[in-house]
């Protein structure tokens, strides 16, 4: 047992560029992007003010549990976004942060971009959900540029959102397309913010970032804690029998 007294399961032979594959190389089913979004949607409390970032987070709005009202914030100055506009009903003065035409729900409001970021940076959003390229065991997030990619990248609102949200959830695949872990001891990609992530929802697991380390909360159906650990670049704390991910 490590000297801090917290039980950990066996550490992988770590290394970010090393491809870590499931034992025997057998491809087990992983969650789809929609399923990741569906699981993350359960983290949103009724009545919460929530910002959804690009990628998987943007799919969450379509998976809200029945009976839950969430006020979606967009950093271009909207609170209370509804679903995407239907074809033929788009209004290009009413777009979300991805510049996709959306609708409003009752109680919506408009404001300018500086006030929109008073909300992000000032700690007024209950939950923000961002995509991620890497998350470190301390909760550092890298999500705006892949080294070596063409062009300068783009920060957008991610740094303000990451710095300020009361609760920050990252939705991403557990591994890169090359099989490298995206949850790592230290981020090697350009950082978005330090020690900002509270929870990671991937196609394999739900993991909470705690002061003592990464706490494995749930695993995807058919996956064991050990198998998830083998694909994770930082040690996971396993306090008890890990339940399967719930979707409702």
């Amino acid at each position: 047992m490590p000297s801090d007294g917290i039980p950990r399961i066996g550490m992988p032979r770590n290394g970010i560029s090393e491809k870590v594959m499931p034992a025997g190389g057998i491809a087990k089913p992983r969650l789809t992007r929609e399923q990741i979004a569906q699981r993350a949607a359960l983290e949103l409390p009724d009545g919460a003010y929530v910002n959804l970032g690009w990628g998987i987070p943007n799919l969450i709005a379509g998976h809200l549990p029945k009976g839950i009202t969430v006020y979606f914030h967009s950093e271009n100055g909207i609170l209370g976004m509804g679903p995407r506009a239907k074809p033929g009903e788009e209004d290009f003065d009413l777009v979300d942060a991805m510049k996709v035409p959306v609708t409003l729900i009752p109680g919506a409001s408009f404001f300018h971009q500086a006030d929109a970021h008073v909300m992000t940076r000032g700690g007024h959003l209950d939950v923000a959900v961002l995509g991620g390229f890497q998350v470190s065991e301390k909760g550092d997030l890298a999500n705006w540029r892949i080294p070596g990619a063409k062009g300068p990248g783009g920060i957008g609102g991610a740094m303000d959102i990451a710095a300020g949200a009361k609760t920050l959830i990252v939705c991403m695949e557990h591994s890169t397309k090359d099989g490298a872990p995206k949850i790592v001891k230290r981020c090697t990609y350009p950082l978005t913010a330090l020690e900002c992530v509270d929870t990671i929802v991937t196609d394999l697991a739900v993991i909470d970032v705690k002061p003592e380390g990464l706490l494995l909360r749930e695993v995807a159906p058919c996956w064991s804690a050990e198998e998830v650990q083998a694909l994770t670049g930082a040690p996971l704390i396993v306090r008890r029998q890990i339940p399967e991910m719930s979707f409702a």
Partner: protein
Amino acid sequence: MVGGFGGAGFPNNLIQALARKGAKNITAVSNNCGTRDGELGIMFKNNQIKHVIAAFPGPHANHFLERFAAKEVTLELVPQGILCERMRAAAAGLQGFYTTVGVGTEVAAGKEERVLEERRCILERPIHADYALIKAQTADELGNLTYRLAARNFNPIMAMAAQTTIAEVEEIVPIGAIHPEHVVTPAIFVHRIVQAKGIRYAE
């Protein structure tokens, strides 16, 4: 400074006019760097911009990306909310502010760092501009402005921050026709009004 978030609230008519006029060596401040030939795209196509301060150049900013790759334009990438605050600081006569945003990232490079409120933060400086080109929905003849839906975005902040603000609007109404409680940008921040039918480019 050029308003708009993508195409929403972007003053396309003013930028088309600036493209025809051909002014060069412009330092531009705008969230995005254009959508193909739309929005700021034409300015990069014409090589009129030498430096741009932006939060999200954008995946469809092909003319910018070509100029950037050819080192014909330089870029300062700024977190979006900090971009707003730096312009607002210029508007509000503040000389700088401290923020936790960007601490430990590339954005912090070369910036003063210190601990305030028990948090690591960096010093950010105002962004001033000679001109703001903005888009509003309705102006009264004095220059009071309102915006339509989420086309508001950066426009009210830039209107406050520049020495001279030029507003492209869809309609001009008589003085007093906008309810004083509904004015979003008071006329003190608006120096020229141009009425024009809004132009849209596909994203």
